[in-house]
C-alpha cells in the first residue's frame, strides 16, 4: 500500500501461523468421518422430518436457534442504541428511491414472499426452511424499505417494539410449553412433534424476516443524521 510502506509483521505472522496450523490439523484427519450424521438422520426420520438440517436446527439443537434469535434481536437493539434519533425504526429511508426501484419492488416483493412461503413449506422435506425463508423475507423487507414505501402507522414506537419482540417471546413460550407436560425445555411431545416443528418454523421465518428487516431499518442512515455535525 503506497500510504503505508512498513510491513505489519505481527498480523502477517499471526495469519500465516494460523494457516499453517489449520492445514496441518486438517491434513491429519482421516478421509472419511460420519460425525453425528447417522444419529441425526435416524432421529429425523423417526420424527418424520425429511430435511435433516431442519431437524437439527429446530429440534435437536433448537436451543442454539433460540439463542440465535436472541442474537438477532439483541443486535437490532444494540444498533438502535447507537442512533441519535430515538425513532430510527419509523423513519422512511430517503435518497435511494426511484421509479425503477419502485416498479421492481412492486414486482419482486410479492414473488419473494411466495418464495419464502414455499421455502418454509418444503423445508421439512427438501432444502429450505426457516432460515432461508426468513432470509428471503428479510431481503424483501429491505427492498421495500429501500424503495421508500410508506410505512403503516404501527411501525413506530411501542407497536414496532412489540413486533420485534413478539417472535422471540412466542418462541420462548413454545419452548416452555413442554415444561407443563413433564418434559424439559424444547422437548416436544412425540405425537405432536412434527406439527410443533412446523409451527416453530413458520414463527421463525417471520421472526428472522422481521429481525433482518428491522436490523437494516435500525442501521440505515438518513441524510439528516449524516449532516448532524
Amino acid at each position, binding site marked *: 500500500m503506497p500510504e503505508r510502506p512498513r510491513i505489519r509483521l505481527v498480523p502477517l505472522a499471526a495469519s500465516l501461523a494460523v494457516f499453517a496450523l489449520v492445514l496441518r490439523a486438517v491434513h491429519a484427519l482421516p478421509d472419511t468421518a460420519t460425525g453425528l450424521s447417522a444419529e441425526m438422520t435416524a432421529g429425523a426420520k423417526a420424527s418424520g422430518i425429511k430435511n435433516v438440517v431442519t431437524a437439527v436446527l429446530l429440534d435437536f439443537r433448537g436451543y442454539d436457534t433460540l439463542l440465535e434469535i436472541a442474537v438477532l434481536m439483541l443486535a437490532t437493539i444494540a444498533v438502535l442504541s447507537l442512533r441519535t434519533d430515538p425513532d430510527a425504526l419509523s423513519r422512511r429511508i430517503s435518497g435511494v428511491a426511484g421509479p425503477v426501484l419502485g416498479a421492481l419492488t412492486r414486482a419482486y416483493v410479492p414473488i419473494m414472499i411466495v418464495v419464502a412461503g414455499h421455502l418454509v413449506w418444503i423445508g421439512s422435506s427438501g432444502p429450505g426452511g426457516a432460515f432461508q425463508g426468513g*432470509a428471503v423475507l428479510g431481503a424483501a423487507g429491505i427492498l421495500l424499505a429501500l424503495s421508500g414505501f410508506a410505512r403503516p402507522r404501527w411501525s413506530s414506537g411501542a407497536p414496532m417494539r412489540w413486533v420485534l419482540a413478539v417472535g422471540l417471546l412466542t418462541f420462548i413460550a413454545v419452548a416452555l410449553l413442554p415444561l407443563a407436560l413433564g418434559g424439559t425445555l424444547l422437548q416436544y411431545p412425540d405425537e405432536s412433534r412434527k406439527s410443533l416443528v412446523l409451527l416453530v418454523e413458520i414463527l421463525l421465518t417471520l421472526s428472522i424476516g422481521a429481525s433482518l428487516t428491522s436490523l437494516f431499518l435500525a442501521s440505515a*442512515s438518513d441524510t439528516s443524521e449524516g449532516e448532524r455535525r
Partner: protein
Amino acid sequence: MMIVFDILLVATIIWIAVGSLSQRQMFKSVVMFVIFGLFMAIAWIRLSSPDVAMAEAAIGAGVTGALMLDAIGHLRRSETPYASAAEPEGGEPDA
C-alpha cells in the same frame, strides 16, 4: 474434471477477497464483497449444501451487502469539517 472447476472457483473466491481488502475506494470493496457472497453460494452448491447456499445468497450477499452499502453511503455523504487527514474517507474517489 470437476476438480479443476473447484480449484478455479476457490481461487476466484480468494482473489475477490484479496481484491476487496486491497481496494482504497470503499465502494469497490463493498461491491466485491457482495460478489464474493454470490461466489460463495456457488461453492455451497458444489459442497452439496443447498440450505447454506440459499442463506448465504440472501444474508451473506443480500442483507450484509445492503448494510455495508448503507454504511459507505453514510461515510461518503457526511461532510465533516475535521475529517481524518491520515486517510481519505471511504468511498471518495481518489484518482
